[in-house]
């Protein structure tokens, strides 16, 4: 029963195992499901294992059991989408213009209302041409609005659903805010980097080493000799180098700040330095890059077991990276090109990673600006996303 529903869910990208589906059959057989409302809840608890998929589930459910969604629901959906679009428009007019096929120069002339009207018309065309066109918005990943993962209305409140039909409840899409695109929060960063630990035995010896105790006791002719070991403690040293200069890093201030806050709260031995675009003779301990210069050669005196982490877009003019006098600040003393300094750092530390906020999904950085490619040969690069953080965590702890 409901085999098609199962395949619809899978088609929508939900990882549901056949076992879970069979379990649903068992529940149906046991007579535990008393109607569509029950089915909605029970099927979800059995088959959907993360709140991030609740929204997809709601959509598939509504479609399967309701045929096409009602027009007014669709309108409501549009409204939310439009608000998000407006936000996006204010932030990046060019991209939106391209997406809608408007000349970017004429864009500033459109008032927000006009833009919305224009967008609506486009969207109607879209819905008429493809059947099931609401997916065009709904799937999030492909529409210009879904990309942003931004919800101007803030978190919607879920909760009780007394008295409403299951389809209605599903249509409410209470779990929209839990979908996968949401922004990085500190706790997510924490989750991703939790694995970053370097456990070494330190501190007071307060843990019994059974094996050694027995050996010593035997040696002692049966007179008990208890051997204690120190506990394993986290002694990870982290050096964080943040590119905080110039407008190219501006859009990422928030996400970098989140990472930064997390790092400060989490790592006991953390050194933070700032730079702009590329590394030359010195980096700075103060974010203004004015008062506290720190010579790069000094890095060679730090523990080579420290984890060196860069955060930056690695995008700059090629001469900034490769010319011995390429620094954009004329008063910066410079004896060798930035790439040499970076190479020096890469060789000084066994474990390093580079977070690049520019690329959101790419697992490899074999494309992108020339300088990014060059730097990626020295440091493994990771996207500044939850997934990227997780991969980097594994990479930073690998043995070699």
């Amino acid at each position, binding site marked *: 029963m409901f085999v098609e529903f199962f395949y619809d869910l899978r088609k929508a990208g939900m990882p549901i195992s056949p076992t879970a589906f069979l379990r649903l059959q068992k529940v149906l057989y046991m007579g535990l499901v008393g109607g569509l409302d029950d089915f909605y809840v*029970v099927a979800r608890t059995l088959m959907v*294992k993360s709140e991030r998929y609740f929204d997809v589930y709601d959509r598939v459910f509504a479609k399967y059991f309701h045929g096409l969604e009602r027009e007014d629901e669709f309108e409501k959906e549009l409204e939310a989408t439009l608000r998000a679009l407006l936000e996006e428009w204010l932030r990046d007019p060019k991209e939106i213009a391209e997406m809608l096929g408007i000349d970017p120069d004429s864009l500033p002339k459109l008032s927000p209302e006009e833009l919305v009207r224009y967008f609506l018309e486009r969207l109607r065309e879209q819905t008429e041409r493809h059947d099931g066109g609401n997916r065009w918005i709904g799937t999030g990943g492909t529409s210009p609005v879904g990309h942003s993962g931004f919800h101007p209305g803030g978190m919607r409140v879920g909760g*009780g659903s007394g008295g409403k039909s299951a389809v209605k409840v599903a249509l409410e899409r209470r779990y929209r805010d839990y979908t996968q695109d949401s922004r990085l929060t500190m706790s997510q960063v924490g989750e991703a980097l939790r694995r970053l630990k370097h456990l070494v035995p330190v501190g007071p010896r307060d843990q019994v080493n059974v094996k050694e105790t027995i050996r010593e006791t035997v040696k002692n002719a049966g007179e008990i000799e208890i051997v204690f070991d120190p506990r394993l403690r986290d002694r990870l040293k982290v050096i964080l180098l943040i590119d905080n200069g110039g407008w190219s890093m501006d859009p990422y201030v928030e996400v970098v700040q989140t990472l930064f806050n997390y790092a400060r709260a989490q790592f006991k031995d953390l050194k933070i330095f700032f730079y702009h675009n590329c590394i030359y003779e010195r980096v700075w301990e103060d974010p203004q890059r004015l008062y506290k210069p720190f010579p790069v050669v000094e890095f060679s005196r730090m523990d080579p077991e420290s984890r060196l982490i860069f955060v930056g877009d690695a995008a700059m003019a090629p001469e900034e990276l490769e010319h011995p006098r390429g620094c954009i600040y004329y008063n910066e003393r410079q004896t060798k090109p930035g790439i040499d300094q970076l190479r020096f750092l890469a060789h000084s530390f066994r474990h390093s990673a580079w977070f690049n906020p520019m690329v959101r999904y790419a697992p490899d950085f074999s494309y992108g600006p020339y300088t990014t490619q060059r730097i990626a040969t020295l440091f493994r690069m990771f996207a500044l996303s939850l997934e990227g953080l997780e991969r980097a965590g594994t990479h930073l702890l690998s043995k070699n």
Partner: protein
Amino acid sequence: MRETRREFTGTSTYVVDPELAKIVNVSIALEMPLLLKGEPGTGKTLLAYAVAENLGLPLIVLNVKSSMKAIEALYQYDTLTRLNDSRFGDSGRDVSNIRNYIRMGKIGQAFTSDFRVVLLIDEIDKADSDFQDDLLDVLDQMSFDLIEIDETIRAKNRPVVIVTSNAKKDLSDPFLGRCNFHHIAFPSPEFMRRIVEAHFPEVENRVADACIETFYRLRSLSHIEKKPATRELINWIRALRLDPTFQVRLLERGKELPFLGILFKKSADYLQAQQAPVAVR
């Protein structure tokens, strides 16, 4: 087990929405662990207490700690005591019987209990993912091996297992596959009203309304790192009711926001909430 097929319906202080009640009942019927996620303070842990109370079953709580190994949750073999006994031999225990030195952990206790119990595995995300993986088969088969005496402990009565997790990140896939899943969404204001009434049966309407409305407004402030949840609201109302100088009038007008520290635990959040305009009417 027809006799235990009593339905979970919530308790006097734990108001449960029908959706969650259904999920709990299905999990009990299927004898599968129920994994609960949701914002901190929305009653994940309390649900286990409520289920135990409602069904009249004893509750065994396993508070997961960050350094915990799965084996600790099952049983512990106390080598030191045995060594000590073998040296001095004055404890009255039979040293040659390893059984005397095996102590059951929380999961072991739940399995060996003569009654059906509710087993709460609280905040499983705190431990490494190895912990979940090691518990997989234990929870699936409801049995584990005592390596030292080569014996299998099988659950006499399959316990009702409730697992909670605060993590935003998902648990490991194989573990998820063996659980039922529910995410406790934040209650709507109407539902919150019922929760408040369950906790404070004699609260005045006006106070409850003002508190709940202010609470939801404070929650909706943007850039709050740790949003206050049900737990904070209940504590806040409790504090307000204990304060003889509290005037609901001032709260309604947004003139005064007493005891903000109960709602906001991070200083940045606190400061932001203080400056927020939150007049009810």
